[in-house]
């Protein structure tokens, strides 16, 4: 039994009831326990010092400690029923040390001075054991201590303080509205996460952070029994680094699109989206099957975010480029020689992609990463040229840089931190342009909205993406809905076909709440911003089959 399976099972929660792979970390608690205050900051500082002193005394040249309390509340409903509610808390300490130029890591749920000192000693012992077979000593980029600092996600409404009943009522209303508008089945879920993390290191940093994330989502299913067909449409929400205020559905955060479509920026109207989803799913049942061929694609931010994630986010992770993920996720086509050449055309000159851990409301926005580095923004692709990667303290030196990018993250106190993707976003176009005007300029195209099927090779060249909604564009007009659409391309070819980007008024973020990486696998959450973007002459296939 794998560790995660065990935890799922022991919670007898999501895993047992849904047979789902959604990672629930920690022990089941009551909703009230989720509201208990975080441990006293002075106490955490004392405990952190116990770890740092114990590690130093045993010979560590560097150490950091994370005292973490990770809270989750996940709600699952289907039609008129509440299927499951999980409330989970995970509390403990992870200690990382360098001895003889080698990392060692240990973790414990025994958050007492004795437990922590023993854990630090174990970390040192593991580092010592591994140093005998180490061939590449750790070269840690310097990081000046930041002293005692605090950072909190700027939320307006703590989702954990909203009564469970209120959230259930919302989800059941979402289901009921979708059913009234033609859905045969609906599932709706609400995921809420709060990370209370205290980080300290021998550099002299004591960082207390309170991080919030939320993700409302649903799937609507429409059935045509006579035709033997079923179609689904998922929510067009985005997971966000926000509190429950994301659920307010503010009119000012809605971006009207063609054909009655609505884009949601920093506020989500779940009921409205569910009604639209039911109506659109019915339309999907009779939609025309696409004719395979070359089309100009107009990609909505709620779709393009995943393409950015897979074709730019993952290939520019420096640890992948170096080969550390070779046995699992793979390596990368974006090799160091391409970066060194300063002339590798990743995309057309319109393409400017930034890594950013400071953008408000995003999943990747924090004050400091899990090795105490203050967060920042930097360029990955500038005017179409590959200019940088995503790196941690022990790898950034390879790029000739003296300061880490701040990309280190662990999904739990018991997991060792490693390189994880920051928000990676496409900058909006500088010229004034909205989606309606963009569509007017397309002769033969497809407008794609929402996250669908996705697959990309282990070096991130060849990919195939589907979506939730596909509209045919003929001579500048939307000509109706299409079905069986997926596009295939090669990363460099695709980004070089980027022809037009809408302006900043159209900019929104997409997010991935459970992005997996590493062995044993860890999850992380990351956002990708963009405006609607046009790509010319992309290969579209027809995915319809008969069995």
């Amino acid at each position: 039994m794998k560790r995660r399976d065990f935890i799922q099972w022991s919670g007898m929660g999501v895993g047992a009831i849904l047979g789902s792979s959604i990672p629930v970390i920690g022990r089941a608690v009551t909703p009230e326990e989720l509201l208990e205050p975080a441990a006293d900051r002075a106490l955490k500082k004392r405990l952190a010092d116990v770890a740092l002193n114990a590690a130093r005394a045993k010979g560590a040249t560097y150490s950091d400690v994370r005292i973490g309390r990770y809270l989750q509340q996940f709600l699952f409903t289907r039609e008129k029923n509440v299927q499951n509610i999980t409330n989970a808390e995970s509390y403990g300490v992870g200690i990382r040390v360098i001895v003889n130029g080698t990392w060692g890591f240990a973790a414990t749920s025994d958050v007492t001075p004795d437990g922590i000192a023993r854990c630090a000693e174990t970390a040192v012992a593991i580092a010592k054991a591994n140093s005998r077979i180490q061939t590449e000593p750790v070269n840690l980029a310097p990081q000046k201590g930041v002293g005692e600092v605090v950072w909190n996600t700027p939320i307006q409404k703590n989702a954990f303080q909203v009564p469970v009943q209120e959230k259930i009522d919302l989800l059941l209303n979402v289901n009921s509205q979708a059913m009234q508008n033609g859905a045969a089945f609906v599932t709706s879920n609400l995921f809420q996460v709060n990370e209370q993390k205290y980080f300290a290191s021998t550099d002299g940093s004591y960082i207390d952070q309170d991080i919030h994330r939320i993700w409302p989502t649903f799937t609507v299913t429409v059935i045509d029994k006579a035709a033997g067909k079923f179609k689904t449409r998922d929510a067009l929400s985005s997971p966000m680094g926000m509190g429950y205020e994301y659920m307010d559905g503010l009119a000012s955060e809605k971006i009207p699109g063609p054909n009655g479509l609505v884009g949601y920026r920093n506020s989500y109207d779940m009921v409205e989206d569910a009604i639209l989803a039911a109506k659109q799913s019915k339309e999907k049942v009779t939609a025309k099957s696409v004719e395979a061929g070359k089309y100009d694609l107009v990609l909505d931010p709620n779709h393009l975010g995943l393409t950015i994630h897979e074709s730019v986010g993952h290939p520019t992770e420096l640890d992948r480029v170096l080969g550390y993920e070779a046995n699992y996720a793979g390596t990368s086509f974006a090799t160091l020689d391409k970066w060194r050449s300063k002339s590798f055309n990743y995309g057309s000159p319109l393409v400017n992609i930034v890594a950013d851990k400071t953008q408000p409301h995003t999943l990747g926005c924090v004050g400091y990463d899990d090795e105490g580095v203050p967060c920042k923004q930097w360029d990955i692709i500038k005017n179409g040229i590959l200019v940088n990667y995503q790196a941690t303290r022990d790898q950034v030196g390879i790029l000739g840089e003296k300061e880490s990018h701040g990309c280190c993250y662990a999904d739990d106190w018991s997991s060792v931190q490693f390189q994880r993707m920051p928000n990676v976003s496409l900058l909006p176009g500088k010229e004034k342009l909205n989606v309606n005007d963009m569509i007017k300029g397309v002769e033969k195209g497809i407008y794609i909205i929402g996250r669908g099927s996705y697959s990309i090779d282990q070096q991130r060249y060849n990919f195939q993406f589907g979506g939730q909604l596909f509209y045919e564009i003929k001579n500048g007009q939307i000509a109706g809905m299409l079905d069986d659409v997926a596009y295939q391309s090669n990363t460099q070819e695709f980004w070089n076909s980027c022809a037009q980007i809408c302006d900043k008024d159209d900019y929104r973020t997409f997010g991935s709440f459970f992005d997996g990486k590493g062995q044993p696998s860890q999850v992380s959450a990351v956002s990708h911003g963009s405006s609607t973007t046009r790509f010319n002459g992309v290969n579209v296939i027809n995915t319809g089959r008969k069995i």
Partner: protein
Amino acid sequence: MAILSREEAKKIIDKVLSYAKADETAVSLGGSKTGNIRYARNTVSTSGESTNLALAVTSVFGKRSGTATINEFDDESLEKTVRRAEEIARLAPENPEYVPMLGPQQYTEVKETYADATAAINPEYRAKAALDSIEICKKKNLTSAGYLEDTTGFNAMGNSKGLFAYNRSTSVDFSVTVRTEDGLGSGYAIQDYNDARKLNAAASTEVAAQKALASKGALALEPGKYTVILEPVAAADLIQNMMRSLDARNADEGRSFLSKKGGGTRLGEKLFDERVTIYSDPTNPEIPQSGFVMDGRPREKTTWIEKGVVKNMAYSRFWAQKQGVKALPPPFGFIMEGGNESLADLIKGTKKGILVTRFWYIRAVDPQTLLYTGLTRDGTFYIENGKIKHPIKNFRFNESPVIMLNNVEAMGKPVRVNGSLIPPLKIRDFTFSSLSDAV
């Protein structure tokens, strides 16, 4: 001590049940010790070991249920946990689909799920496995990246209606990717067992190394329909996806590949080639499984597909009760019958075809037809006149296992992959839709 005996587990569970005041109470108790080592670039990157022992109490009043968990085992903590589960249950919304707990059951005892050799794995064993693998690659100027994980654990459960179940198990999983220094060749191998005595990490590394070297200098073939030989690792990924889609409720509701046009299901229909037979059997010594599933149902030998005909679908207890049928739990590991030929025999008997080591990044494209997409990876070769002629560039495929299992040319001897027994498969007209530059 994370691994409790049957008697130790029963004693704790009975004690917890003695505190219970709810209409129904279930207790589950599980413990595990798991260790891992990860290496890349011919050096160890991370290693670790952890233990867990936890108890979950589920209390039920009418159709309201609540669960609380604890990892302390003194009387006071246990009683507190029962009270907390009862409190959560009282506040929980009613679940109209709640089905009362099962009473005592007869379970087949499967001792082979546990092996002392696996339980005895320590950091030195893991380090040696990693080092051996690294050394093989270093000698050939190749780069290895691999991962070994071993787990020893037990599950026990009991409830206020007298049900009790206990099983202990071990597992060890090893995977390795070997790449040439110039990045133009890549090979992969994987093994998983309950008993570590069967594991041979060095042998897997040799296979992956040989594939890495042999896959250098790949030539591009035009995408299209080809006869393929899927090694068991490649075949397993697609067939496992299909076996996870046997849910009866989805089929009855009209949203499954097993739903029938006009209503009803395709149970009893011949959907596959008549040589296709797939069943599950917890007592199979190659892929032993505990005799029960975690909602207390016994795990029995079940035929899912027989001679191409869909024989059974999987049920939740709620849906089975509603439909008035036996509540067959879904298959966990399964056995796909094959032939006696080896992979080499299948290659020998192929005039023109493609050998696929494994698939990667498989995602559902259309749940209606079970169409999946993904790519070949870590060793794809062109076969001509019974011999491997040369390596070829990787392909993206768009294919449904349902269509694939209608195009069976030949099947070899099944081997264990991810807890199932899967034969190498020779399939005609397998759809490759584009080329990939990835190595």
